């Protein structure tokens, strides 16, 4: 209920900012959108007796202002959701709430921030700074803001970044009524850490990135609480206990851009608790521009990921996808593809369509169809969760 009020408040606040911007001479930008969503599940009742339909409202608001002739910047970027069925999916987050000071070659940043590392379309294995919200999106691509103090040094040899990150945030999983959800609930009362400072541990990361000719290269090291906990079945509670080991991860990401071909690679070696593991993910994207003498483009994406941990959920998966962009006034686009477990027989089909229907309205249609799923695959819990979602975003 409280979340509902907060989101309503933010919505009003956003409109207020937009109105203020139009009225006052202060130099700032404020914009955002509100997006109602309807989902229907069409291949069964769900493995956990969840509902066959869901409604949700997603809100995003952005506020940016520059001070002192652009030497300082304040950014606020808030997202929130009210979900009809899953209380874990209702949340509010300041993805960005940061102050930046720009010196000649140095940027100092304090506050909540979203940092993306990586080059792939599907398997972003080196992206580690921000915590995922699996209730929002089970694939983990939706992230929470991470509080940090960060320094960037822009040298002619490349960019050096340092991140100091207090205030660890635990991963959010779908709740009892969430769909899709894990086979068992994650017990919030039994969370354990390898670090004796637990969630107060201050995490750190460094990154070097550069552009050399056709190559965009990033090398990074992260040391801190792993964002991804180990989940162990507690035989007494019949729930999952989450344990966050300390992760020490070194990673490399490279993209090579050769005409219409993009070649992508992400790789890492990491010590997670006591065990070391290795991961690699990459692939290629080729785009046919001006498909059959029209203005449309067709992109073909092939990506693969491997992880040497046998018990890791994504240790041998491939994606084949097609992305069609019409390049019309409505920005019509469609991406569709197949995700397959190469070591088993599980697979999933997905399609995402979007089109602007008015200058301030955009419609999204997302579909996900689960094919065959192995009973020992963790996604077996989602087997009956094939879904169709309609979203309409109204922009301010």
């Amino acid at each position, binding site marked *: 209920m409280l979340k509902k009020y907060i989101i309503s408040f933010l919505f009003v606040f956003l409109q207020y900012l937009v109105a203020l911007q139009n009225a006052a001479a202060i130099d700032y*930008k404020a*914009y955002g*959108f509100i997006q109602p969503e309807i989902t229907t599940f069409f291949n069964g009742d769900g493995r956990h007796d969840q509902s066959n339909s869901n409604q949700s409202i997603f809100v995003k608001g*952005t506020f*940016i202002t520059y001070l002192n002739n652009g030497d300082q*910047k304040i*950014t606020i*970027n808030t997202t929130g959701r009210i979900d009809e069925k899953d209380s874990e999916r209702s949340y509010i987050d300041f*993805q*960005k709430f940061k102050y*930046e000071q*720009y010196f000649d*070659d140095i*940027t100092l940043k304090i506050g909540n921030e*979203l940092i*993306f590392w*990586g*080059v792939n379309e599907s398997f972003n294995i080196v992206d580690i700074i921000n915590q995922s919200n699996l209730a929002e999106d089970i694939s983990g691509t939706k992230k929470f803001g991470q509080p940090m103090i960060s320094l*960037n040094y*822009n040298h002619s040899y490349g*960019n050096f970044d340092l991140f100091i990150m207090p205030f660890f945030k635990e991963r959010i999983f779908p709740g009892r009524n969430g769909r899709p959800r894990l086979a068992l609930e994650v017990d919030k009362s039994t969370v354990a850490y390898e670090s004796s400072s637990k969630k107060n541990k201050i995490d750190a990361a460094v990154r070097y*990135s550069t*552009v050399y000719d*056709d190559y*965009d290269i990033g090398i990074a090291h992260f040391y801190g609480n792993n964002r991804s906990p180990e989940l162990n079945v507690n035989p007494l509670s019949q729930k999952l206990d989450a344990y966050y080991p300390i992760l020490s991860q070194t990673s490399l990401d490279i*993209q090579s*851009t050769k*005409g*219409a*071909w*993009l070649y992508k690679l992400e790789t890492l070696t990491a010590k997670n608790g006591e065990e070391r593991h290795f991961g690699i993910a990459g692939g290629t994207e080729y*785009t046919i*521009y*001006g498909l059959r*003498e029209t*203005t449309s*483009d067709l992109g073909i994406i092939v990506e693969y990921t491997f992880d040497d941990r046998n018990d890791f959920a994504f240790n041998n998966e491939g994606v084949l996808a097609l992305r069609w962009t019409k*390049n*019309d*006034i*409505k*920005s019509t686009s469609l991406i569709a593809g197949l995700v397959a477990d190469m070591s088993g027989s599980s697979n999933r089909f997905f399609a995402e369509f979007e089109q*602007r229907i008015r*200058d*301030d309205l*955009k419609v999204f249609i997302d579909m996900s169809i689960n094919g065959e799923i192995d009973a020992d695959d963790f996604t077996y819990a989602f087997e009956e969760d094939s879904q169709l979602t309609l979203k309409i*975003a109204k*922009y*301010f």
Partner: protein
Amino acid sequence: MKKMKFAKIIFIIFALFPFYLSAETAEEQGLRIAKASYENGRGFTDMVSDQLMILIDPKGNEVTREVSGKTLENLDPNDGDKSLTYFKTPKDVEGTVMLSHTHISDDDDQWLYLPALGRVKRISSSNKSGAFMGSEVAFEDFSGTDYRKYEWKFLGEEMENNETFYKLESYPNYENSGYSKRISLIDNLNRTYKVDFYDRKGELLKTLYLEDYVLYKDKIWMANTMKVENIQNKNITIFKWLNRELDVGINKKDFEKSSILRLAD
């Protein structure tokens, strides 16, 4: 005798020299005019502007798109300019930033920040003929302004609206162009007035009119309106530069990949 012969030869060479000068081929003359026309717009050092794009369909329906941009002139004549574009409307793309490092003989380098993804992506720039934001303006119309990207030929002079223009034909010498040729009319101040674009099949595709020329810094001519009429699909795009300022002293580092995030949301 020998000396005499030598003097004669020298005399003949000198006598013929002006003739050689004027015996410019149609290709050389075309290249010379195209180069002068291109250099007409050079020397700006850097530039900021707001841009308005009006898209009009055959029924007369209009939509407007707003972007703002910065450009850094590359003083190295063998390499291209750098530009940073910030998208304001339509509202769903607000906060999108595009950085381009153009090159004369090589593919451009391009990076795009999309707020919905929250990441900076290096994108392919071989999409020369693609439409810019659903308009009738192709990417190559922005990036292909350098005269060295074409082979030129002078076709003669032509009268239009009681004014005499140089008529030039040009063929792109880069890959993936959507055009087989272009016919340009250039006025006696070396300003491009009109360009006809022919598609890959050789059919007339669209006509570009450059209007509202303003003289900056007493030497640089820039058109502040660009109108593109697509002959085949009957759509019209009008591109207007507002608040254009030259030589404002932009930091070179603003045009690096890492600076995109300073502009992004």
